[in-house]
């Protein structure tokens, strides 16, 4: 009888301690999750800013200006165009 009781007490204590550990771990994991989520959001924000930057660099006005001024390009005049037709 005494032995059974002792065993049960040990089991209860072990269970109690594991509850504490589990809770602790869950909190730690949650904090980690939280951190990663914040990072994800941060990266999304950065992605948005980069997209914005990209489209600002790629505005047609800027591309045309660079093409004309720096690269010396111009629209083809009639007669310079070669039309490729599909063989079908």
């Amino acid at each position, binding site marked *: 009888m005494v032995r059974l009781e002792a065993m049960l007490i040990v089991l209860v204590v072990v269970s109690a301690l594991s509850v504490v550990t589990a809770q602790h771990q869950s909190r730690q994991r949650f904090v980690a999750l939280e951190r990663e989520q914040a990072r994800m959001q941060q990266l999304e924000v950065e992605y948005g800013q980069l997209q914005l930057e990209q489209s600002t660099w790629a505005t*047609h006005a800027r591309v045309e200006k660079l093409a004309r001024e720096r690269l010396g390009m111009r629209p083809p005049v009639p*007669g310079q165009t070669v039309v490729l037709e599909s063989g079908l």
Partner: protein
Amino acid sequence: MKKKARNVTFNHNPLLERGLPVWRARLLLMALMAGSAALGLRAIYLQGVNEEFLQAKGESRYARVVDLAATRGRVLDRHGEIQAVSTPVKSIWAIPSDVRLDPPEARKLATLLDMDVAELNSRLAANKDFVYLKRQVSPEIGKKVAELKISGIHDQQEYRRYYPSGAVMAHVLGFTGVEDKGQEGIELAFDKVLAGKPGQRRVIKDRRGQVIEDVESVKEPLDGRDVTLSVDAKVQYLAHTALKQAIDTHKAKAGGVVVLDAKTGEILALVNSPTYNPNNRGGLSGAQLRNRVFTDTYEPGSTMKPFIAGLALEKGKFRFDTVIDTAPGRLTIGNATISDAHRHGLLTVAEVIQKSSNIGAAKMALTFPAEDMWQLFDSLGFGAPLKLGFPGEVGGRLRPAKTWKPIEQATMSYGHGISVSLMQMANAFQVFARDGDIVPLTLAKLDAPPLSGRRIFSPQTAREVRAMLEMVVLPGGTAQKAQVPGYRVAGKTGTAEKLEGGRYTHKYVASFVGFAPASDPRLIIAVMVDEPGGAFHYGGDVAAPVFAQLMGGALRALGVVPDAPLAPLQMARQGDPASRSPL
């Protein structure tokens, strides 16, 4: 042992033998029982009856409901290029009474916020609980301000909308207000789709305010969805440049351009001038904000004539080559006289369109009952808004046929006494570009072209009018400046004197509406220039060159095969399907 000797045991305690009154014991027992009953009731009250309230009170000590921001959707052009995007920014605010700034700190803060120290101090001297020091600064600056750790200075997250294309797209996109709500253009028309729904969740925070447990999600944040427009950023840019040039050269007051895809009814470009920069909206005037293409109506002038020709052919009363006598260049109806700018004499129906004879058009129109003409205008979409969801769209003026006098019917045939918006005009020209039917216009990109539209003319009629419109840009027509090298072009000029306060002034609206390639129309372009102030005011001189420049650029950008190859053009035939490249 001595005590034992005295023979005093518990049972034989002499004190007890004195015999206490029974009520004392009973009273004590009752008191104890009452006490325990009170505790029991209290416990039941707290645990049972009042439990919810107390739980909530307790939770409020550590649980918090946090708002989760939802971002507004992006606006993309038809190729996925970003036209509007929200990025987070910080607004720096302060509780003036909490702020204790020593001069070096004030200097640092002022430099970060790009303000004068004096201005900063005057803001902080305000007798208010809340002042914005600076709204919408970049997140980096917000972080640096937070790192100064000045008490009483706080920041809050906000979103700011950016429009990379700036003025080019301004009238298509519109803009949002401070609260990130759409106020104009697409931002307003598609606000329901774009706007996100902020969410909430309940969390447990520790003493330092760090979230340690996610209890439940009260409401998931719902990010706004992206909107993909039918607009092609490249065509839009070409249209913007071409119109701006024309406005500058001809010293015009304003102007508008619409580009439609004739195959699908998609709006590829929509440009107004004057325009504005949506990223910096200080000092805007109403004229700049006006989306003329939708909200302004004008008397279309001669661009109306092809519809009358179409009606004439459709009803079988006229043929392509039926001769109409327009001599002597004047026609009196009732007590009013209409006239042509040039005398022409005998003209075929095709030549009436080519040379833009008012008398020819009026003579054709007067062979129909007013009801027929009204029916035509109505089915072409004049007189009622197109309902594209744009704010301020107008329907123009089209009075009921019963009230028309013959002279009005005559003038309406060449576009006076009726008013339309440029978008309506472009819409109606589908009837010639599309073999006689009209599909609904759209600003959102379509996955598949609409199956069929509303039929107005037979394909035969549409093709014949198209041939007439092609003559307009050929030698002998009114718009030779609308020619595009390499492509067959068709269109119609319009020059209308403006009506102000019921009288015609010497101010004009020059327009050109046309499409190309004429063999298989792909693009419809409508150009309108308001009050050209230079040497020219005819549609053929002012609007047609804009059309030509834009059409040439747009067809090349879309890779449309030329249908009128010029002599030196080489045609290469590619036999190998694997290396077939799209143009």
